[in-house]
């Protein structure tokens, strides 16, 4: 009988003791991949911007910066490729039933993504190795496909995530999908657009503030030459313009969630009962079906989610208890993201106002300290945002169709795998930090490393700039 069941439904749910560890493992891998790809998305634009300034003005400082940054870009790209490949493996290693059942619905997104990565990988090599070898104009042009592929790559992969959150484009019959319409599933899905735009803007914020943070740190320690000022001002300007826009885009995202995933929205705010004119609570903790110790702001949730202070907002009670996400994780993540979002916008406003009025950088060291902190904080916001989206989707892996525990592998050894991955990724972070620090302290020669991947930053770059200026 058991044999018969197995034969009939080879991917029926299995007993897996370690679903939680599998989810942690998936989340860890994303948390490593996502900050890296922000550089794959936004950094090409920064580098090209610098090169364009050089082409237009002939000022060698821009060229030096562009060249230095392009090497950092290549090194981070290499690590991005590796961590992305791991993600693809994990989809099969950890969630085979999900892949077996739905792979054909969203697979096209990844197929198109692969081509974006081909283009990105090819032209990033042409660009970085082409310094001094291609004519300046051709060299500049060779960088443009990199920037475009960064966008199309994230568009196609996020189309998959948007589909998981808001699935459509197929019919489910006895656990098997039929009548699959892949284009409709991936690109006819309105959930895609806010996720892509929000993520794309986030990539510019993260890459911008992190890069600016490096030079702001240098500024505090007295490195304030022309090279550092330019390298600070350009990414900072871009991030400072993107940060306020992100609030508006985030508001749009929240309205989409309110409409399509009311349970997730209720988890953002810890709203148990369906209410008209629902409030928002700042901080606090969700316990016993209500938010304790929070600061209530009456009617704000209705206003934000539906742009109407009296709108009816569905609470968690609308669905059975086993279909609710873990409220506190989602809520804390959401508030972290939004809090940091406003903080970043504040820093941006200071910077932009000073610049527009006085045409110079702010002079207070507090401003530079704030920028140093803004870099890592933007990464925290990024990951918190994804935790909001992904944990808020729980307990579903495909919203409303398949639960996460139905997706998981039947293989043993998940804890061993998880522990190994933690160690290896820990080692990866230490190695990258070590090498960045090493290069910052002991500048190498201008020669590109044989691997071409020498991430030459701060100190090394300064020496070089001085040499070229002379």
């Amino acid at each position: 009988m058991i044999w018969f069941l197995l034969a009939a439904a080879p991917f029926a749910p299995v007993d897996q003791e370690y679903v939680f560890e599998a989810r942690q493992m998936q989340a860890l891998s994303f948390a490593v991949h996502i900050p890296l790809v922000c550089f794959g998305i936004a950094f090409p634009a920064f580098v090209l911007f610098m090169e364009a300034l050089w082409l237009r003005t002939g000022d060698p400082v821009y060229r030096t910066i562009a060249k230095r940054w392009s090497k950092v870009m290549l090194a981070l790209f290499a690590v991005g490729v590796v961590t992305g490949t791991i993600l693809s493996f994990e989809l099969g290693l950890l969630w085979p039933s999900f892949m077996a059942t739905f792979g054909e619905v969203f697979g096209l997104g990844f197929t198109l993504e692969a081509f974006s990565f081909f283009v990105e990988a090819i032209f990033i090599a042409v660009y970085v190795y082409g310094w001094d070898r291609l004519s300046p104009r051709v060299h500049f042009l060779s960088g443009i496909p990199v920037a475009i592929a960064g966008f199309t790559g994230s568009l196609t992969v996020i189309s998959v995530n948007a589909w998981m959150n808001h699935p459509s484009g197929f019919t489910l019959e006895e656990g098997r999908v039929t009548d699959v319409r892949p284009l409709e599933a991936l690109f006819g899905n309105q959930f895609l657009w806010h996720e892509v735009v929000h993520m794309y803007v986030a990539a510019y914020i993260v890459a911008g503030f992190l890069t600016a943070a490096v030079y702001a740190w240098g500024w505090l320690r007295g490195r304030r030459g022309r090279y550092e000022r330019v390298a600070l001002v350009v990414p900072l300007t871009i991030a400072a313009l993107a940060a306020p826009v992100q609030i508006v885009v985030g508001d749009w995202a929240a309205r989409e969630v309110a409409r399509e995933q009311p349970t997730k929205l209720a988890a953002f705010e810890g709203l148990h009962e369906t209410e008209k004119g629902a409030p928002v609570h700042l901080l606090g903790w969700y316990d016993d079906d209500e938010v304790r110790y929070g600061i209530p702001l009456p009617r704000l949730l209705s206003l934000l989610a539906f742009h109407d202070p009296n709108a009816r907002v569905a609470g968690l009670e609308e669905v059975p208890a086993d279909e609710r996400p873990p409220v506190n994780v989602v809520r804390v993540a959401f508030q972290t993201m939004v809090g940091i979002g406003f903080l970043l916008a504040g820093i941006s406003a200071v910077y932009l106002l000073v610049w527009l009025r006085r045409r110079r950088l702010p002079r207070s060291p507090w401003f530079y300290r704030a920028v140093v902190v803004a870099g890592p904080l933007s990464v925290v916001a990024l990951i918190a945002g994804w935790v909001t989206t992904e944990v808020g989707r729980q307990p579903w892996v495909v919203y409303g169709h398949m639960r996460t525990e139905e997706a998981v592998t039947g293989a043993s050894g998940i804890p061993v795998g998880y522990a190994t991955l933690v160690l290896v990724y820990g080692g990866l972070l230490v190695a990258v930090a070590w090498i960045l620090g090493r290069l910052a302290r002991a500048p190498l020669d201008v020669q590109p490393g044989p691997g071409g991947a020498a991430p030459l930053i701060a100190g090394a770059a300064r020496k070089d700039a001085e040499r070229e200026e002379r």
Partner: protein
Amino acid sequence: MTLAEVPLVLMLIGLTAYAVLGGADFGAAFWQFGAFGEHGGALREHAYRAMGPVWEANHVWLVFVLVICWTAYPQAFASIFSTLTVPLFIAAIGIILRGTAYAVHAGTAREIERRTIDGLFSISSLLTPFALGTAVGAIASGRVPVGNAAGDELTSWLNPTSLLVGTLAVASGAYVAAVYLAGDAARAGLGELAAAFRTRALGAGVVAGAIALVGLAVVAYDAERLSDNLFAWPALAAVAASAAAGLATLEFVRRWRFEAARYGASAAVASVVVGWALAQRPELLPGLTVEEAAAGRPVLIATIVGVAVGAVILIPSLALLFGLVLGGRFDEQAAERTSDRATLAPRRSRRSLTAMAAVAGALGLLLTLAFDGGPFLALGVLGLLTFVALASVALGAAAAEDDGRKERL
């Protein structure tokens, strides 16, 4: 060929490209492993340098194979990954270690650091193709049943065929790499290095050939179904072609004709992959034919069209990259000081740019807040993005250039 088989052919093309190009990468690291002697340093540096520009692109092939597999044959993909968890996880860890060592190696300063990193790099470069090879052996010998982790977690990949294919993967990578590196060294005029790699290529070629021969015997003993088909038409033709290509390549290497050898070696690897596919036809996994495993028609068509469109972009791009690399354009001695003069047109009015940005921003804000969907919302979001782009250009350039002007005053 039926529609359901087309994605499989695409996967085999990807697999061949990965086995040849990615394999050459792994193999290059293999030669670094033992290279501590007199020429050791030069040898290791040469291996890193030669694969620099193509490293990332070579490895996208693996991703390509995976995504086609899970789109077109989702049940097969899920069965393979859940049964072969251990070797595939080992391969994944190898890939991480390798990528990290690769990114970090350029910054190593002291000999001890360099050795540590190179060692890590080489070990992970052995581990990854070996583990992937055992997985291929498991599929070929019919040890992956359909289902969620339905096969044996250990014997599925620890068996004669798997161990054989794993070893063969390492050996053929080493061989292809030696051929490539000899060619690169000869092109760069490094006669001594070229000779060193030529010797290695000959040695590795003989070893790989011997393993392949032994392999036929192992397969005959261990995987009956596979060997029955392998020794019959049409798979036998592919096996013969592979042997012929392998022998021809050795002869090319012997005569210092590395360009021809490059293609010969690739052909030898490709024929092995084709032979395997023909021998296994029509089953993908035991009891699961390609037709049964295939996704629905619309998905297959969308995938094929997607790949075709992608190929239109990919093929010229790859040709460009390999043209530049093989033409020696990225070699060190090709560097020249290009002009530092400005080549773009002088700047347009910054004020009009700022004004446009402001209009786009204001419009974007209003529309995005006012609409919950439809074309006006889309317009609003576009407005916001336009604002960020235009204002970045205007303000960023202004900030950087004003700074320069102040400096000069």
